[in-house]
């Protein structure tokens, strides 16, 4: 099974001297193609920091992160943007859609950044909306949609660029239990049908129940890594 992400001895320290906080300590982790993994742990255990490393949003203080065969060390800000654009999809807790763009435009925007031609962009964006069962809401702006609908659009945006991995940080935290269940079922279906790799940082037992792999973090270290 090929590795989508490899972390070797990854550590992250925030602050300096007496105020230094060791957020991650010597993390060794491989995410495999097709994983549907949850990253769990108490607050402050390093879930978000590790997701940021895996997603090329931040760089480790020491150690190495490789995404889809590409080591991230020594890449410029623009090169890291390219990695995020082409290899990583993100789903955030607060949806984080662009408020002045419609659902379709939010999805198309990522494709435009990739340089996909206009006609293809539109077709792929509509297909992505259909995949999350929101084809009827293509022209609605985020403020005209419920939280669950916005998060489904965010999933469609994360998937439309055909990334190597989709990272979701507490994607259900702002959703009610029914909507959370629907969203996780959707992501799980996409993982099953398409083999899309998901890593989900969560506290939500409902999410963990769907995971095929459960990674437990504690105090910046991996405290457990096993089948879900």
């Amino acid at each position: 099974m090929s590795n989508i992400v490899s972390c070797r001895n990854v550590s992250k320290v925030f602050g300096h001297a007496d105020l230094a906080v060791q957020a991650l300590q010597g993390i060794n982790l491989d995410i495999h193609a097709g994983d549907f993994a949850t990253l769990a742990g108490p607050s402050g255990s390093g879930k978000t920091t590790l997701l940021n490393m895996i997603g090329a949003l931040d760089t480790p203080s020491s150690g190495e992160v490789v995404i889809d065969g590409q080591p991230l060390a020594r890449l410029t800000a623009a090169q890291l943007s390219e990695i995020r654009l082409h290899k990583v999809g993100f789903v955030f807790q607060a949806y984080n859609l662009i408020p002045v763009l419609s659902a379709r435009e939010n999805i198309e925007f990522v494709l435009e950044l990739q340089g996909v031609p206009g006609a293809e962009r539109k077709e792929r964006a509509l297909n992505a909306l259909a995949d999350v069962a929101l084809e009827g809401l293509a022209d609605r702006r985020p403020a005209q949609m419920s939280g669950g609908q916005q998060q489904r659009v965010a999933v469609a945006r994360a998937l439309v660029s055909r990334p190597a991995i989709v990272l979701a940080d507490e994607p259900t935290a702002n959703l009610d239990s029914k909507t959370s269940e629907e969203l996780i079922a959707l992501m799980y279906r996409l993982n099953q049908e398409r083999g899309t790799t998901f890593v989900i940082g969560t506290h939500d037992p409902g999410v963990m129940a769907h995971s095929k792999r459960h990674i437990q973090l504690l105090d910046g270290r991996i405290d457990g890594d096993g089948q879900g």
Partner: protein
Amino acid sequence: MIAALAWRNIWRQPIRTALSMVGMGFAAMLLVFMLSFEFGSYDTIKTGMLRISDGFGQIQPKGYKDDPAIDKVIEEPTALMADLAGVGAVTASSARDMAFVLLARGNLSFAAAVTGIDPVQENRITVVSSYVKQGRALRAGDRDAIILGDGLARNLGVKLGDRITLLGSARDGSVAADVLRLVGIFKSNIPEMDRQVAQIPLARFNETFQMNGAVNTVALSGRTLRDITAASGRLRRIAARHGLVYLDWAQLQPAIKQGIALDLSTAMTMYATLIFVVVFIILNTLYMSVLERTREFGVLLAIGMKPRQIGRMVWMEIIFLSLVGTGIGVVLGMILTGWFQVHGISFQGLQEVYAQFGLPSRIYPHMTPFRVLFGPLVMLAAVVLLAVIPYRRVLGLKPVSAMGAGG
């Protein structure tokens, strides 16, 4: 889509955007009007002053301006004026003679500058005939007629129909003497002119002062001063061909040029201050808008947008806002200025003062592409250039810290 995004972003806070646009628009409107008024009034002042006596330009013998001696002459004025007639911008040219003389009546005598003019041509160049308050102006066919400024007439104690004795030096150094009949008294409200100037027919001057057909200067006029100024190069070449010099308005009236330059420097300081204040208010607003959206920019970085792309989007927002605000201001400024360009602006109570400078009681702003666009374009350029400040702020953003920011 980035352009569409930028356009929609500026309307997220419609009231703030509208206020920013109103600010820029008002400043642009003011700049269009003020510059058009400023330069329009300069045009009026220059034209008014030049039409009192100088004309829009003159051709003279070399050195005549600094030392107007009667023996510095244009020997062939007819040939020169024929050449001037070939210049499209020149609508009239008038030969003149001038001498400093004594005018006497009875026991009273006063020094005066007497000018020999062609009344028909002169009326197309200067407005002295319109200043005549008693009697009449000189006219074609006059032989021994003279008109005086009212101060000079008062000093001499003369009235219309009186004989006045003229005594001076002719071109050849001999005594020039004549007796002339007063046909008109003018009042220009310019004290020096009213106390010292007299006009007689050019032909009479020629005889009395032994000019032998030569003249001292040729004054010229055009449809507008701008037309004559534009033809300056050609007029200089014609003058040089005749061994003469061409003097433009600034050389004829250097004091006006200096006065305008002084006034303009004060006005420009005011305009620069206006632009400075407006630009920094706008930039402050835009910078606040960037700070408020730091978290959103972090998300855009996370989904793969490059910092430079976000910076360009912010720059585009600034350009859109500035273009719309300035554009509206320019249009409103043109409408406002256009109205006053037709109807003029009257400064009540200042008519007497204006008249002293040959100015009408109404001042008319005058639009040209430069006057309309210069101020707003400077403001636009300043905003667009200083937008580098929010642009650099965006370039320095890191996704994680930006997403952790409020807003």
